[in-house]
């Protein structure tokens, strides 16, 4: 019954996404596209946080790596051969640095989008988890990472475009980005990528790997005493999260046509976590819906009443975390729990349980 329900929900959602160009305006479709790109990152966070219990407050870093690498490619593609981006000339550079030029080739750029965030995530995870640093400490370290990454991007203006970031893209693989047909294919590509990411997560959840992640989340040292090394599992999970973030960032750049440090720092990184918390941290479909909901909500509120957005998201965060730790996806379960509590408080069974406990002790 439950399986059937979740499957039909999946199919309904997919159908709604596929049919979206039919019922959404171009503006809203473009919003939907970029939020679906964000949902890929959320799926990664779901694995990392919901399944492995690792709270990352620096997911913006891996997202930003993917975004900046593709943006570098786009920037180079917009230039005549031999030219340099304007901000480099203003900063007095006389030639393109080597680590820029390699991304001129589309294949290298795509590979970079995939590999750089993955390796960065894996490297950090390896260093930290091997020393058994986790939980709150890890969250704080990733937050410091997000801060350092954003400051570095701002300060190294000659190489990163500084505060303004990278923008003014024209073509990708020879096609004009502003072209409506390109935007439409971009939407489809995003939907396909999200679906693939979703199926990947579903597959992971059925493997032994997925079960061991849950085991580590619930009892890290217990799992270690069963002969598993949690650091290795957590590193792989975190690397997957990094890869998803990188892909998400690259797609996002294509949707919005700009990337800047303000989009990757501490606050955006936390907002990524909010979306996942709202949807339900350990539900794959939940985090996709949560991401759409929070981002559309943000778009709506911050255009209507900009001041209210921060109050709103702050309050939302407090309420969801305290009252709905499993997010929106946890609501059906919640009803069952409340019902169970009522049944229990209705009398005899509680007493029975108590006597049972006493007899067991003796």
């Amino acid at each position: 019954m439950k399986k059937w329900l979740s499957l039909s929900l999946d199919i309904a959602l997919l159908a709604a996404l596929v049919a979206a160009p039919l019922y959404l305006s171009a503006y809203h479709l473009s919003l939907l596209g970029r939020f679906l790109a964000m949902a890929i990152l959320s799926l990664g966070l779901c694995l990392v946080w919901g399944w492995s219990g690792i709270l990352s407050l620096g997911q913006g870093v891996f997202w930003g790596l993917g975004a900046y690498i593709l943006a570098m490619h786009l920037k180079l593609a917009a230039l005549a051969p031999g030219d340099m981006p304007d901000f480099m000339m203003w900063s007095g550079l006389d030639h393109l640095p080597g680590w820029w030029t390699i991304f001129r080739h589309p294949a290298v750029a795509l590979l970079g989008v995939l590999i750089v965030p993955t390796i960065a995530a894996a490297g950090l995870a390896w260093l930290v988890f091997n020393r058994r640093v986790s939980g709150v400490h890890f969250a704080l370290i990733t937050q410091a990472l997000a801060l350092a990454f954003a400051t570095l991007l701002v300060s190294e203006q000659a190489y990163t475009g500084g505060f303004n970031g990278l923008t003014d893209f024209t073509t990708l693989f020879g096609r004009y980005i502003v072209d409506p047909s390109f935007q439409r294919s971009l939407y489809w590509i995003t939907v396909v990528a999200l679906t693939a990411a979703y199926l990947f997560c579903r597959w992971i959840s059925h493997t032994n790997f997925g079960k061991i992640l849950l085991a580590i989340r619930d009892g890290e040292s217990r799992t270690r005493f069963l002969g598993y090394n949690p650091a290795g599992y957590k590193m792989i999970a975190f690397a997957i999260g990094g890869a998803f973030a990188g892909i998400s960032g690259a797609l996002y750049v294509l949707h919005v046509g700009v990337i800047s440090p303000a989009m990757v720092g501490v606050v955006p990184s936390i907002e990524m976590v909010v979306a996942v918390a709202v949807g339900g941290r350990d539900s794959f479909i939940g985090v996709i819906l949560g991401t759409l909901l929070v981002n559309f909500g943000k778009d709506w509120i911050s255009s209507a009443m900009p001041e209210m957005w921060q109050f709103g998201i702050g309050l939302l965060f407090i309420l969801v975390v305290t009252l709905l730790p499993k997010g929106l996806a946890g609501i059906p379960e919640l009803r069952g729990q409340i019902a169970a509590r009522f049944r229990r408080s209705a009398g005899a069974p509680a007493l029975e349980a108590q006597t049972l406990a006493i007899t067991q002790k003796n």
Partner: protein
Amino acid sequence: MQSPLLSVENVTVSFDGFNALDGMSLHLMPTSIRVLIGPNGAGKSTLLDTIIGNVRPASGRVVFKGEDITDLNEYKIVRRGICRKFQAPGTLENLSVEDNLNLAARPRRESWRSFGVGIASQVRARVERVLERTGLKEKRKSLAGQLSHGQKQWLEIGMVVSSDADLLLLDEPAAGMSLDESAQTAELIRSLSSDHSFLVIDHDMTFVEQLDAPVSVMHMGRMLKEGSLNEIQRDPQVISVYLGREKEVAVA
């Protein structure tokens, strides 16, 4: 002569200057049972902690199957064939009973080898046997978090058993069990001792008697006496250590 499966050699462990183990030694032969008793704070749990790598000794060493395992990582020690049941129930709450056992039983525990979906047939068979013996067959699909305390205790024992480790460390396996259940546990341990070695901590003398195995008494982080339960109970030193603290020994 047969060489011991496990040798704890002159191990000292200190916490903030206090020696929880103080020159402790113990030898355990393959396929044997040893019961560890001693007053509270004697260092029994710390000994198990040291064997499994949870606590690093200041001096001395632990040798398992002829190999020094003193400084190995916990998970590496476990992979060499030691498994431990802790005092507090440590089942994995959000996994089914079956998955709990599967994870304990899987021989391939490296992260990169865990991307399969199924469970190997010999693992499955072993888990099946454990489900049978622990009476958890009907509960196989329930989440471990939904089990009663007693069932969790059985599951925990089942996990240790299904690991198929050569040495099983059990910290108070019969705690919180009814008389019947603890008798069953003792029987399970005895029947498995043809293939495995056990080091069991328990206070319950009825249970210890049912195990019918040599007893080691620890006191102040050291080995006080080793012998049969009968010898131990008559030993004046043991009696003086226990007197007024744990009347079970004196009474039994």
